[in-house]
């Protein structure tokens, strides 16, 4: 069984992002970039399925600037076998990304595609569901547990109020939530080995996919700042203030 794992290069989760002065985006020059944390979880899950003997090959795919190669190398170092880079700048929207992944999936024929539930830059939470729609495959989003059982995969999902388990006929789409696993750090020898693993580069035109954006960003603004920082000296003072000043209790 082949598994396809799309991964995105994003601003690292530890970076405090700043809105650009021209209000057209956020500052990305000189900012640390990393693999989207949910995608690391996706790669880890695929590698575990391979270690269990369920999967035989893991192909990772990234769509973005040429530097997304680094993200793919990280995934290869974690245990993926092969990488595909589709160069596209700026990053296409989730629908266009889903169309590109679909084109690759049609060539590769994976049984499972595992994606992160959301990219922490645009926070759109849309690619896996859009891809599932375009392929007409079932989807198990926000997964905290994945079990392949014959022709089906059982996915336990994080939902409002608890957990839900669904059974999906393969081939299927899975999107990862935080509790699915704890991704490994690639060991140095694996990082060296990853440099020699195959990486193919394509463009959206090679796949005949139109990536014209559907959304026009009119403005990117900073949210209103909170005036926090006041301290109270005791619990009694806190309760008093909540009653008489804030009037919330």
């Amino acid at each position, binding site marked *: 069984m082949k598994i396809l794992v799309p991964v995105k290069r994003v*601003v690292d989760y530890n970076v405090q*992002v700043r809105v650009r002065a021209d209000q057209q985006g*956020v500052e990305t020059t000189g900012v640390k970039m990393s693999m989207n944390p949910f995608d690391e979880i996706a790669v880890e899950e695929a590698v575990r399925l391979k270690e269990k003997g369920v999967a035989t090959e893991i192909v990772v795919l990234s769509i973005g600037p040429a530097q997304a190669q680094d993200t793919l190398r990280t995934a290869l170092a974690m245990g993926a076998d092969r990488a595909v880079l589709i160069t596209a700048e700026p990053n296409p929207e*989730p629908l266009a990304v889903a169309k590109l992944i679909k084109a690759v999936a049609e060539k590769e024929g994976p049984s499972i595609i595992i994606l992160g539930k*959301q990219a*922490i830059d645009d*926070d*759109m*939470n*849309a690619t896996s*569901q*859009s*891809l*599932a*729609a*375009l392929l007409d*495959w*079932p*989807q198990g*989003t*926000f997964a*905290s547990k994945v079990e392949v059982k014959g022709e089906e995969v*059982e996915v336990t999902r*994080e*939902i*409002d*109020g*608890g957990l*839900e*388990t*669904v*059974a*999906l*006929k393969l081939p299927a789409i899975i999107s990862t*939530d*935080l*509790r699915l696993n704890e991704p490994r750090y690639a060991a140095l020898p694996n990082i060296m080995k990853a440099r020699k693993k195959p990486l193919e580069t394509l463009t959206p035109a090679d796949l005949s996919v139109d990536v014209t954006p*559907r*959304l*026009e*960003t*009119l*403005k*990117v603004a*900073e*949210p209103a700042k*909170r005036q*926090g*920082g*006041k*301290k*109270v000296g005791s*619990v*009694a003072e*806190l*309760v008093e203030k*909540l009653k008489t000043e*804030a009037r*919330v*209790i």
Partner: protein
Amino acid sequence: MTALVFIEHENGAIRQPSRSAIAALAKLGDVHVLLAGTDLSAAATAAASIAGVAKVLTAEDAVLADNLAEPLAALLTALAGDYSHVAAAATAAGKNALPRAAALLDAQVISDIVGVEGADTFIRPIYAGNALATVKSKDPVRVLTVRAAAFPPAEPTGGSASTEAAPAAALDAAKAAAAKSRHVSYEIHKSERPELSAARVVVSGGRGMAASENFKLLEPIADKLGAAIGASRAAVDSGFVPNDRQVGQTGTIVAPELYIAIGISGAIQHLAGMKDSKVIVAINKDEEAPIFQVADYGLVADLFKAVPELDAELAKA
């Protein structure tokens, strides 16, 4: 211009996040709502009396009972032709099905909107809420999910909508799409407390709570304040509380009247889920903790001393 809003029901009532989605779309024009599942009559009555709802569509079939994305997205797609907007609250069900429906309609979904600027223009947070993007859609049908915390819910009464069954063709589309997935089981974490996303007060614990049993310390306080109990990711990952308690960028977004963060450092991913609360209280023993920068009332203290004191002080009232 008419919007179709998928709404969720529970025990014959309409969930509050769905009423917020109705309120958001009502800014643009008429709102029709879609109820899906089985035993819909009580929910349909409740939906018809929500202020601002012009029509209730019911799609009654067992394949729709568990909000599986495949039949639900097919149903929404089959109905979309009559509407300028298709929307739902950004709940687990909404986030699951709406992007799927959008792709079936060849539209780019606009997730988690916090502002409505016009029929095609919406505001949504990006980068964990550190920036707000105003985006204009070029798609003929706009498919949206709505951040419930950003829109006061439509009143549960005051409306008098008509109710009708969704066309048979739409139900057939849903049934045809249901062959590849099946609901197996739920593990719902029962609670007598208000729902996290709808509570007037939220009391959240973080890694500083140190153990699952210490969350019991928060219960008498939550009881006295009528609060929901939330948590940071670290508290969930450590197994102190179940997953559905997580407040933050990638958990539940809350904006209660009062948010009390106890033993939570205030990482950006946590702040993303609570910084629009009206009043924020932080109790933390580290006076440098970033949570204090957003707190209206910060108390530098050991929580194991401060929490019982807080309970005693509230009992006096």
